[in-house]
């Protein structure tokens, strides 16, 4: 025999793996965002396209530099997570955001939101939302100045720059004016770049569900909770409360439910954990929207639930096949518990 008979690769089983890698998952998420991204450029003009590109470059650069500083290969940015963060951050910012503010947001999102925790997989909070939260504090005026979309790629039909206008949620909350549902669904409203036109988010979200990139439990739990709770208030007092359908399609709820609450790193990994997260986030969204100082609460709801995710993960283990009760914290034969040894 001339063929080699030694020097074969020695690795532990299994010797086969599914096609998906972290990189492919991130890439697929960006692809499913494309309908919403294209529509946002269509609505708000080419300036927004520039914002997306600027954000992607800034995020990748920030990640590359911090990874180099941490002694990792700067090429590990190829996992694509920074691109996802960049696109999502732009989508939750108002269309007139200044490039400087955007860059600040990107650096904060990647550096403080992710890299300081140890990089991908280690962060507690959704990086894009960390960036958004920082900008809320740093640029309070810019971040609440909304424009109504122009239709034709930034060419202004009436020769005026885009009108500024309150978001439908703010109008409903503070002025008692309710936006018509078709406008909410297709995005002829004031709002963040990617949050208007909920239908395009839903299209991408359904694609992710079909590809099993996200879990339906989270989406159903979060949207269902918001729908039911706002429905209860609407039925009890339809004069002062908006319909639950309005709440579903207004603001950032769809983007939050499909793309933020489903971020793998910062949300629970069991299905029951996803349900708990969605329930908690849904309650917080409704409480903030109906009773809080802000008209919109998706960002805070998800960030707060991110904070309790480690606890949810600790207490939502599955019941082991054939075991009498769930979790591993039940005492084993000699009394050792999971906690033992961690002190």
């Amino acid at each position, binding site marked *: 025999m001339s063929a080699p008979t030694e020097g*074969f690769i020695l690795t532990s*089983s299994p010797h086969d793996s599914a096609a998906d890698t972290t990189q492919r998952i991130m890439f697929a998420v960006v692809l499913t965002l494309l309908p919403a991204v294209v529509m946002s450029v269509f609505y708000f003009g080419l300036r927004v396209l520039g914002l997306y590109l600027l954000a992607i470059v800034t995020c990748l650069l920030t990640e590359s530099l911090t990874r180099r500083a941490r002694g990792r290969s700067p090429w590990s940015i190829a996992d694509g997570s920074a691109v996802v963060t960049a696109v999502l951050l732009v989508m939750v910012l108002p269309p007139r955001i200044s490039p400087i503010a955007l860059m600040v947001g990107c650096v904060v999102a990647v550096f403080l939101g992710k890299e300081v925790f140890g990089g991908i997989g280690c962060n507690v909070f959704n990086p894009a939302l960390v960036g958004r939260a920082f900008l809320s504090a740093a640029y309070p005026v810019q971040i609440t100045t909304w424009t109504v979309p122009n239709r034709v790629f930034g060419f202004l039909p009436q020769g005026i720059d885009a009108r500024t206008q309150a978001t439908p949620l703010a109008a409903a909350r503070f002025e008692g004016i309710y936006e018509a549902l078709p406008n909410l669904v297709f995005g002829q409203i004031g709002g963040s770049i990617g949050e208007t036109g909920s239908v395009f988010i839903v299209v991408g979200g359904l694609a992710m569900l079909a590809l099993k990139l996200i879990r339906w439990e989270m989406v159903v739990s979060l949207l269902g909770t918001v729908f039911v709770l706002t429905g209860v208030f609407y039925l009890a007092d339809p004069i002062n409360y908006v319909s639950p359908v309005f709440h579903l399609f207004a603001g950032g709820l769809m983007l939050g439910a499909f793309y933020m609450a489903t971020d793998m790193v910062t949300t629970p*990994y069991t299905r029951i954990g996803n349900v708990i997260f969605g329930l908690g986030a849904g309650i917080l969204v409704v409480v903030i929207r109906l009773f809080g100082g802000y008209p919109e609460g998706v960002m805070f709801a998800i960030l707060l639930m991110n904070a309790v995710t480690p606890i949810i993960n600790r207490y939502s283990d599955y019941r082991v096949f054939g075991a009498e009760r769930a979790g591993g914290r039940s005492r084993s034969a000699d009394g*050792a518990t999971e906690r033992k040894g961690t002190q």
Partner: protein
Amino acid sequence: MPVRTFKKGVHPHDHKERTASSAVEDTPVPALLRIPVSQHLGKPALPVKGRGDEVVPGELICDADGFVSARVHSPVYGKVKRIVQQPLPAGRMSDYIEIEVNVEETQAHEWQRRDVDLDALDRKAVVDGIRDAGVVGMGGATFPTHVKFSPPPTAEIDTLVINGVECEPYLTCDHRLMLERTTELVEAIRILHRGFSFKRILFGIESNKPDAIEAVSTAAAGVSDTPIEIVPLKVKYPQGAEKMLIYAANGRTVPAGKLPLEIGVVVANVFTLVAIEDWFFWGKPLVDRVITVSGDGIKEARNLRAPIGTPFSDLVDGCGGIVGDVTKVIAGGPMMGVALPTLDYSVTKGSSGLLFLTNAEVVDESPCIRCGRCVDVCPMNLMPLKLAAYARAGKFLEARALHLNDCFECGSCAYACPARIKLVAWIRYAKNYVRVHKL
């Protein structure tokens, strides 16, 4: 008929098309056999033949050392050349008995069928026969079969589940066996039924083998004294794992940390059954087996019947040799098999496959993104990402408290992991640590 299955699991590409329709062929009688004394779970067998001793087919060469051990017999006419120490595929060292084969005499040898009065068989005769024949679980776990059929006084066996699942990719030896030796399979079930009077006999076969389902159904319908229920199963890995198969076939759950005996069930692989039939009707102990030789790196993929102890290099020659740039050789299937450093090993009772892969590469782990896919696929409902993280951090007690030892290393988690984390390797490491340090 509704198609049953277990919960969770994965769907690896099955790669069975290359050998699924190739009939079993005999390898040429090898000139030299290298037979390990440890081919089963439990204590290694004790050699009863030494250098220079003549052996004949079926002659005992190693006796069982205690209850949880298994006999080893000579497949050939020949002479013991020497006893050497060599590693087993899994890495442990074992004594190997090297036999210089008398090729011509062995080629001429034929096993003679003997008359068996099935009605005279009682449980003891059945179990003793299984032990005498050196039969072990041939699905790969190689647990001595007579131990499985010797319940403690407190337990009673009421259900026999036959494993015709063969869920490992590439492997087709069980599939071929169900087609080519259907009669013997049913005969073996009759023998066991004489000893145990099972309440139910369930025969699980995955629905990607419709020809096997049909063949076994037809044969089972032909016997009146032994009711065999054929259970078609949805194709999913690891359905061939005992606990998963029992759940799939009749919805019963084996308690965590316990054996199927606990709920009165015994699972037997189809190959194990044929070995039992061979002993009772032909006086032939377990001295050969069928092994699937496949993968892109082998010229002609085949299902070969080879004597126990046949060097792997002989199998390669019997399949036209290696083609292309083989980067990985696996003893067993790709999900649970063992990667081999060289071809310097031989066929054992548990050898179900020998695979030559050309596309294997070493992939680095990337950070866990907590996607939970390992959690979604683990058929035992374990939390592989937690177990691996504890193993990495050296927190073995914590891992054990999370049912570390309920992992049977099917590999579903590592298969599904997008970060390519070696979850099974970490879990194995923790299990070994816990075992060695008696935590």
